[in-house]
């Protein structure tokens, strides 16, 4: 992002694409796939090194999913771990000079949020059928208004929270670098460290909230 708020666009088949976002997304994907490939390149029955880390993550994720959704949620594990990896790498990618985060574009965050929300409703309908529709009308049918607003708010808050955090972080880095003379980069470095923290936190929040939403749709009803 060379000038704040201005994006390069390309026209393809009559559609407009944000070229930089696409390139950065592909770069992020490449990095994530490379990490995944390197980590699982030589799996052995007796684990060592990276394999232990990967297995630790997978086991932890399985534990989280079992606790939140029950065993039936296990099939979502690859989706969730991909989401987390993608968000983490893309949030941190923007901190490297001349690169930018794919998540500083609302198109990306909204796309992810909508995938999650569509999955939530689709899985809810698939697993529970009309019972899932009925729960929007509880405790009284009047509540349907509030429930619908809540459901619409979910993707918007999910996407805007991530988008705002990452974009603000990058803008501030640019601003700080422009404000401060080149020989006094301490505030920029401090902000960079903070941005690393924010990037991780936002990735965790997005993933956790997605899991919570998905858990609502997937887990078996205890109260019924």
């Amino acid at each position, binding site marked *: 992002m060379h000038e704040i708020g201005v994006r390069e666009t390309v026209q393809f088949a009559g559609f407009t*694409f944000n070229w930089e976002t*696409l390139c950065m*997304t592909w770069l992020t*994907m490449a990095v994530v796939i490379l990490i995944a*490939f390197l980590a699982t390149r030589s799996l052995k*029955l007796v684990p060592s090194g990276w394999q232990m880390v990967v*297995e630790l993550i*997978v086991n932890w994720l399985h534990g989280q999913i079992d606790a939140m959704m029950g065993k039936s949620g296990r099939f979502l594990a690859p989706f969730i771990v991909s989401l987390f990896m993608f968000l983490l790498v893309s949030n941190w990618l923007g901190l490297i000079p001349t690169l930018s985060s794919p998540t500083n574009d609302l198109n990306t965050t909204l*796309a992810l949020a909508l*995938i999650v929300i569509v999955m939530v409703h689709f899985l809810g309908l698939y697993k529970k059928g009309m019972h899932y529709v009925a729960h929007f009308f509880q405790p009284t049918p009047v509540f349907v208004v509030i429930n619908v607003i809540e459901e619409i708010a979910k993707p918007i808050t999910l996407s805007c929270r991530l988008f705002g955090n990452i974009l603000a972080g990058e803008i501030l880095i640019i601003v700080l670098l422009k404000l401060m003379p080149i020989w006094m980069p301490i505030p920029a470095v401090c902000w960079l460290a903070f941005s690393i923290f924010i990037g991780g936190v936002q990735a965790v929040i997005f993933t956790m909230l997605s899991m919570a939403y998905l858990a609502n749709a997937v887990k078996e009803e205890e109260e019924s």
Partner: protein
Amino acid sequence: MIDLNATFFAQILNFLILVAILRALCYKPVVRMIKAREDKIAESLAKADSDVAEAESLKKDYQAQLAEAREKAQAIVDKAEKVAASNRETSLQDTKREIEQMKKAAQAEIQRDRERAADQLKKEIVALSLLAAGKVVEKNMEASENEALVGDFIDKLDKDKIGDLSC
């Protein structure tokens, strides 16, 4: 800055592709590996259990065999002791019998000797008596008459006195 356009759809596609790739490349092998390890551990545990059971049965077997062998050895020792005891008993009996026989033989010998001695003594007494009587009645009596007379006398004497002599 907030301009939604076709990038949105491209990002959906991108992310779904990423999920598909990661699922195939990373997640599945890891889960398969974890599952394989769990299976192997369960199998090893089961095998260890069966091994322990087998060892237990083997041990029982050996103990039984050992006890049996000990019993057999005890039986052999008992039998040997019994045989030795019976051998000793028979040899003791034999010896006793032999001693008894020897004693009997000796007693018979003694009896015979005594009888012979008594016989001889009797004869000598007869001879002496005859001699004495002959000298006494030389003058008035026939020798043959005297001899019969004295023999009778000695016979009576023999029955009454000499038979009871302890010699």
